[in-house]
């Protein structure tokens, strides 16, 4: 999966996933940031394709300018220099529920073709094989953000026909209840970028990362995945993107090696 960048050591699948996610933020304004890879992607976008991006964290921080990579979504570096710190009721009610958030980032342990997401449990709810963290703010982000971007590793155990628990609702059959945000619009994995066909609300492969074949994608998807009319190639990370990740955003490679 790794390819050589123009210079320096090869980039990793995780770096490709983060870079591809950050590019999706071009032109976006207000972004609800999650910890880990979404956090790096959003901070990378702010330094590249979306300099005016306002970073909003569910801890209540609006307009954060973190001086270091935050260790959590409530890291003190988010507060120092921020535009505003709200309490969590205000953050979720006035900012998220009322529709001020353009993009919400979510991770997922399982996703289906309609972008329904499970982060609660593998197995039955009362007899879990694996107990996952649960919703956190994901359920309300999925419902209320204008767009939802999903970042997750892909395999036929994560891209499944039927998820074990719907934590955060997607498109169902292309219909979203009135008053809701637009739902999942992009899914970025270690293999490809996916979008949702507007008519059916169903995921389709939009862009393959370098070195990834359509067969590879199909092997790692448990349903018969749709393919966009124009299937693109994800450009590899640029030198500048890699430098920012490696020197500024994740110098210890916690999320990117």
């Amino acid at each position, binding site marked *: 999966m790794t390819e050589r960048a123009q210079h320096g050591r090869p980039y990793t699948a995780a770096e490709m996933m983060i870079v591809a996610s950050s590019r999706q933020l071009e032109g976006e304004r207000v972004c609800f940031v999650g910890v880990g890879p979404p956090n790096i992607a959003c901070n990378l976008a702010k330094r590249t394709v979306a300099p005016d991006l306002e970073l909003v964290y569910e801890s209540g921080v609006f307009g954060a300018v973190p001086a270091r990579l935050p260790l959590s979504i409530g890291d003190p570096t988010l507060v120092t220099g921020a535009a505003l710190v709200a309490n969590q009721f205000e953050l979720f009610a006035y900012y998220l529920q009322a529709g001020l958030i353009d993009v919400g980032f979510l991770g997922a342990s399982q996703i289906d073709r309609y972008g329904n997401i499970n982060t609660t449990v593998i197995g039955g709810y009362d007899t879990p094989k694996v107990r996952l963290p*649960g919703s956190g703010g994901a359920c309300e982000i999925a419902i209320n953000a204008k767009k939802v971007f999903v970042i997750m590793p892909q395999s036929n155990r994560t891209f499944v026909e039927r998820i074990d628990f719907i934590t955060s609702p997607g498109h169902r059959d292309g219909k979203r209840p009135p008053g809701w945000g637009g739902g999942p619009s992009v899914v970025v994995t270690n293999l490809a970028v996916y979008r949702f066909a507007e008519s059916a609300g169903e995921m389709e492969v939009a862009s393959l990362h370098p070195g990834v074949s359509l067969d590879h994608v199909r092997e790692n998807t448990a349903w018969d995945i749709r393919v966009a009319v124009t299937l693109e190639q994800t450009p590899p990370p640029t030198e500048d993107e890699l430098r920012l990740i490696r020197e500024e955003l994740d110098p210890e490679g916690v999320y990117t090696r």
Partner: protein
Amino acid sequence: MASGDKVTSMQEAVAELVSDGDTVAIEGFTHLICFAAGHEIIRQRKRDLTLCRLTPDVIYDQMIAGGVAKKLVFSWLGNPGVGSLHAVRRRVEGKEGNPLELEEYSHFGMICRYVAGAADLPFFPIRSYAESDLPKANPRIVPIESPYGGESIYAVPPLNPNVAIVHAQRADVNGDTQIWGVLGCQKEAAFAADRVIVVVEELVDEPVIRRDPNRTVIPGMIVDAVVVEPRACHPSYAQGYYDRDNRFYLDWEAISRDPASLEAWLKEWVFDLGSHGEYVEKVGQERWAALTPKESWSDPVNYGEYT
């Protein structure tokens, strides 16, 4: 509620205000999580508590391993930025001890439960949960129609803990409490609770509070005890005082994965220590120095004098 000096020790506050079977909320979102209170509750071997928190975090993993809880009310169950809470998972996945009863919401659902509790409302309406399986897993999340027609939303019930424990940067002897940085939902949890313990980095004179009343989050009127316990949030943090000890959060993954090492940790860091003061000493000066941030002061504001 007695007026005047509410200052007491952690040992006394927990002994007097936390009882077996109580519903307890130690709130604080990443920031200001009062680990010292959790440790004291473990040390005093409280039992059958219902523990409430948006993010149970390492503190409730420790408390549940310490045997104090029968039930957990929560919205995100993990070691933030690191991984799992293994002591909780062993109980939930049926691998250890009695099953732990769970009552699960989303973050906004939990926050609105405290809001309803604080405002003495029978429920709070929110837009979350439609098309999600959460209402199936938790029948207390209920669909309702707007009384003004047209909209179907969800209701969550009030959460009124018997005790809320809130850590803050500073308070005075009356319990007027000031917090800055990430505010979480401590104010809502405190107003929703029957009893409130405030734990502070610093006890300040009343005029210090009164010179900056906008920063006061919790009024002394609802506070039962003020405990002065610096560095009580470690490995969590207090804005401007000390950073999160991320190494501890990373180390916890291995400690809590193995029941024997978790038991040994509780013995070494909780049961064998008499107080949080001993814990602070044991953490060591070198680590405290590494966790101390450089200063970054806000500018004073002019409230004006109106005579």
